[in-house]
């Protein structure tokens, strides 16, 4: 069981890395916004599996914290991206 979950966690991590590569070099801002979202979700899934594999039940708490803060970070990211696109909001300072 542990071996299977460890393999699964490694697999998802590789997928996460591949997704990151494709997105970080992606041409547009929207692609980078997707990166934030993908990292959040993939990180949470990896964390939950890792917690079960290593027998650290508190990893679930880390995942819970991450779920909230990743949401916040993605929203902030998209909002900043939006405001720098249409020129209203924080990017427009003066």
């Amino acid at each position: 069981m542990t071996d299977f979950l460890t393999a699964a966690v490694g697999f998802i991590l590789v997928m996460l890395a591949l997704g990151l590569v494709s997105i970080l070099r992606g041409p547009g801002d929207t692609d980078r916004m997707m990166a934030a979202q993908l990292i959040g979700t993939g990180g949470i899934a990896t964390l939950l599996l890792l917690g079960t594999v290593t027998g650290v039940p508190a990893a679930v708490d880390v995942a819970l914290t991450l779920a909230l803060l990743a949401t916040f970070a993605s929203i902030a990211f998209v909002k900043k991206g939006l405001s720098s696109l249409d020129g209203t909001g924080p990017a427009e300072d003066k």
Partner: protein
Amino acid sequence: MSLVRDITTIAAVSAGAFFFLAGTVGLLRFPDTLTRLHALTKADNLGLGLVVFGLLPQAGSLRDGLKLVSIWLLGLLAGATVSQLIARSARQGETTK
């Protein structure tokens, strides 16, 4: 009984990993922002959801199980909101260019 639980875990986590694979392939191969976003949300909703579902039988207590489910619900909420905002920003980018 524990065999049933383990089989559930293996099946669901494998399916979740498959959706992460599908999402990543979509991100790598799909041509434009909106289709890539479509691929991403599959990894978000189904990938995470199936991983959570697979880990439920392994959870030690009811409280841990509830935490797992609430993590998935938070993920759903975040995914839905963020992808709508991204899609809107992509539309805006198209119209201004």
